[in-house]
């Protein structure tokens, strides 16, 4: 070969040098973005920016500032306030909502936001072709469920014999479009008016209207990527319109950069009608999946707010915060008594000493951790299920010392829960108490159900002398939390109730399959509320609900829920629901609530302001901002010198904030 005249090492080095040069060029082209006014560190990237297809909390949080719904949920107190709609009227029968859209609502390209944009987005959400997680939330609107079912049936028929429509999916689509216009009660009499009729009064319909899945999309942009599949008859909606440069939004921000699993940049929307609300003009959302790296990045000044602290750190860091707050409890309690916000007080205190910190905070989330009882008459093997008997379920729930589990197992200082709805999260909903820890009563309940240790072998038997079957406790191995909880509870049940029990850990996918099939006696569960109404929790027990893993079915429950739904007076309705919840968690116990989840954020209150404390824990990114005097550069965990000499004697009172 002609290259023989070069020494071997030149022949080897030449390609390597070229490679290094190419790498260097590739790397230097890929430069970081200029610093943003606010930097978030998130554990995962958004799966989609299509509001109708979202379902994860961190996506919904971003959607709330990218899109604006008819009404907004104010993060600080979760009140419904004006959004795209300036005002609205509700008919006397509570079934018709008329929204008057503000004339200055604009898309980020300057187009006005019209009622037709909402109707278009809502139609997408209901269409089975979109495959949206939250389609069912729209079924309260008259005709929506029928429209969904008609389209599903029509698609199946089309797939079987496309020739009915001459093999043209558009022909079927025209039928569907006409069906929607005629039968679904969403009306757009003019561009600034949207009228919606409901099948029945729905007390939380406005709350749904503030849910990001009810946000409008810009039809002209979305339509560019819609096509028809002539073999199945389906509408194919490609998501390319969500990419920066194409995406048109009507919220406080527009995404200008989105690099997959790397970062997303939001810039203030120049056409947003309420620019004074938007504090940070640019927001960078970094994705760091590894919890360890996320914390290190936050501590070395890589972000203002770490939205989800990894489980490894929580206990230790929260203890450090507790030590800090304890030192200043007098100042904190005095400030709170004057009505100040906890973050403002804590942010104004002297910097933490070594072994203390204030840049971490745990909040009670709008979520409840629980263990489900299998309420079906028989187990998957066909054997009789002792947990079908509410007395047995009560006995097991009464045996669990939840406070001890929180102090010794979960160790995050969670709030003990005896019911599903987190206290204080829904305005006007009364505080409901379920049954607590009472092992004496537990044994009595089990005895009443016919189980007693008749032969003295240490295991209870029923009246026929058959041993109580070995209790099968199912948990997911995704987090050690559930294994530890299951083991601790197993011991409590063995000790107090004299039953045999075994824990069964499964990978989260297999665990889910078993849950769905009802292959368990007791199983780990949990739920986060979707909207501000008790039904987002209580509906879990409804027969036929897709998330009723317990197989709980009780006609009395259904009747009482229906009665509450038919009640027109909101206060009375909530009182009725509270009665149902009380009955559920003192008598029926389809599941045993354990505690409310704790969400742990990392942010330094002396540097970042605007984090909301409301129990629904909805955060509004557009109201977050660095406090005056805080600039780019080193922030966060960098301690401002040794403060050992400043330590004041420990106050005797506990601070009234976590």
């Amino acid at each position, binding site marked *: 070969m002609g290259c023989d005249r070069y020494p071997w090492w030149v022949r080897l080095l030449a390609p390597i040098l070229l490679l290094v040069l190419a790498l260097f060029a590739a790397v230097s082209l890929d430069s970081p973005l200029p610093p943003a006014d606010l930097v978030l560190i998130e554990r995962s990237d958004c799966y*989609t920016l299509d509001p109708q297809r979202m379902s994860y909390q961190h996506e919904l949080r971003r959607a709330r500032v990218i899109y604006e719904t008819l009404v907004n949920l104010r993060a600080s107190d979760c009140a419904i306030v004006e959004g795209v709609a300036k005002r609205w009227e509700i008919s006397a029968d509570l079934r018709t909502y008329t929204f008057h859209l503000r004339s200055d609502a604009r898309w980020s390209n300057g187009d006005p936001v019209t009622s037709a944009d909402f109707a278009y987005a809502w139609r997408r959400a209901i269409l*089975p072709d979109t495959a949206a997680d939250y389609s069912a939330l729209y079924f309260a609107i008259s005709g929506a469920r029928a429209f969904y079912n008609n389209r599903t049936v029509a698609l199946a028929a089309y797939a079987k014999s496309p020739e009915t429509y001459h093999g043209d999916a558009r022909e079927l689509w025209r039928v569907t479009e006409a069906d929607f216009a005629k039968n679904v009660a969403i009306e757009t009499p003019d561009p600034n008016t949207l009228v919606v009729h409901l099948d029945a009064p729905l007390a939380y319909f406005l709350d749904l209207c503030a849910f990001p899945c009810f946000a409008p999309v810009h039809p002209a942009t979305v339509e560019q990527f819609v096509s028809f599949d002539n073999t199945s008859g389906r509408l194919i909606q490609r998501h390319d319109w969500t990419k920066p440069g194409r995406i048109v939004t009507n919220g406080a921000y527009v995404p200008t950069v989105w690099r*997959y699993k790397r970062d997303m940049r939001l810039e203030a929307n120049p056409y947003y009608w309420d620019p004074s609300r938007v504090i940070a003009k640019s927001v960078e959302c970094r994705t760091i999946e590894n919890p*360890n790296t996320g914390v290190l990045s936050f501590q070395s000044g890589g972000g203002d707010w770490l939205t989800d602290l990894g489980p490894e750190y929580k206990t230790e860091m929260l203890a450090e915060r507790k030590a800090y707050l304890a030192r200043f409890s007098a100042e904190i309690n005095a400030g709170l008594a004057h009505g100040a916000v906890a973050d403002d007080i804590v942010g104004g205190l002297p910097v933490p000493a070594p072994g203390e910190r204030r840049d971490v905070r745990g909040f009670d989330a709008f979520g409840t951790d629980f263990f489900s009882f299998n309420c079906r008459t028989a187990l998957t093997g066909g054997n009789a299920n002792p947990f079908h008997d509410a007395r047995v379920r009560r006995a097991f729930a009464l045996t669990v010392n939840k406070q001890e589990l929180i102090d010794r197992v979960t160790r995050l200082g969670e709030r003990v829960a005896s019911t599903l709805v987190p206290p204080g999260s829904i305005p006007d909903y009364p505080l409901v108490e379920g049954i607590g820890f009472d092992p004496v009563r537990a044994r009595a309940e089990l005895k009443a159900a016919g189980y007693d240790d008749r032969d003295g072998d240490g295991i209870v038997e029923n009246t026929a002398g058959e041993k109580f079957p070995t209790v099968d406790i199912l948990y997911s191995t995704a987090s050690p939390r559930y294994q530890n909880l299951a083991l601790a509870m197993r011991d409590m049940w063995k000790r107090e109730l004299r039953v045999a029990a075994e824990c069964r850990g499964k990978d989260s996918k297999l665990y889910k399959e078993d849950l769905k099939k009802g292959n368990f006696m007791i199983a780990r569960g949990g739920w986060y509320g979707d909207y501000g109404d008790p039904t987002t929790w209580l509906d879990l027990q409804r027969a036929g609900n*897709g998330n009723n893993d317990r197989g709980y079915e009780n006609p009395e429950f259904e009747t009482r829920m229906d009665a509450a739904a038919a009640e027109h007076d909101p206060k009375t309705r909530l009182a009725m629901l509270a009665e149902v919840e009380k009955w559920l968690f003192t008598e029926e116990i389809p599941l045993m609530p354990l505690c409310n989840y704790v969400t742990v954020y990392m942010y330094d209150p002396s540097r970042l302001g605007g984090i909301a404390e409301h129990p629904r824990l909805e955060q509004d990114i557009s109201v977050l901002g660095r406090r005056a005097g805080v600039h780019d550069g080193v922030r966060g965990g960098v301690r401002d010198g040794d403060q050992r000499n400043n330590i004041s004697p420990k106050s005797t009172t506990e601070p009234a904030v976590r």
Partner: protein
Amino acid sequence: MSASSSESSSSVASLIGRRLLQLPFIVLAVYTLTFVLAWSVPGNPLENTEGRRPPAEIVEAMKKQYKLDDPVAFYFDYLGKASGVSWALGNHDRPFDLGPSLKQPDWSVNEIIATGLPVSMTLGLTAMVIAVAIGIVAGTIGGLRPGSPLDAFTQLLAIAGISLPSFVIGSALLMLFAVKLGMFPVGGWGGLQYVLLPAFTLSLPFAAYISRLIRFGMIEEMGADHIRTARAKGLPRWKVAFKHALKNAFLPVLSYLGPATAVALTGSFVVEKVFAVPGIGQNFVDGVLGKDITLVMGVVLVYSTMMVVFNLAVDVLYRFIDPRIA
């Protein structure tokens, strides 16, 4: 000379031709195997991990949309679109369409690979360059003075490099250089300062292995007859080592580089996780865990094609460096 050179170039051409003919069959076998494995993983990729399940009718609609209700239809549909056959037959609007990601509906698998692969390649190739540099230096030092304290030291480092897992080394480097010394940013991508730490971490096991290969080769070569002859002629030791011994000692490294580069490019997910590098590796792992079947299939197709091409490239390079091998 001219005869031999045309002979060697024609043999290179036939080698390339043969391998390229094998390529589709290898990739098809890998595709089928991956498909069977991925399909048999339990769970539903469209299901949310937070325990929320949409109504059954909606789940059905979602499954239909992505042909997840029919493995045979999915297998052939995906194969047709990914290979470009559907496009060639006029049934699809673009070739090599690896489908939408089931978990990330906004991103097609093509886009995910297009954003992640260059990052992983930059990281992997930088790591290989570092590995070769460290490996040659350390291996030559040790190989020229076997048994010396310097040799023992480099050997010790090599053992450590091979046996310490990269998440340990990576975390330690991150703590030291990024957090304590502030010399590098913690996690992320964009600019040379983001590449060095992860690339160095990734390079260590490869560097260690290369240094051992070189050391062994050097010890053997330095005792060979032609080296003794060269030394007898009065050539200085370093010149002999560099001009004659290293060349032959390097050949085993070259054959190791092909598969090693493929491993560095595809197997860097641990390093990507530790350093929050937005590469393809962690997407692949997330895809497997979440049963994102289109993403898994797409990445496997691209990886297996790359594997074949890399091994081919090394074979070609081998002939280029040492024309005697044909």
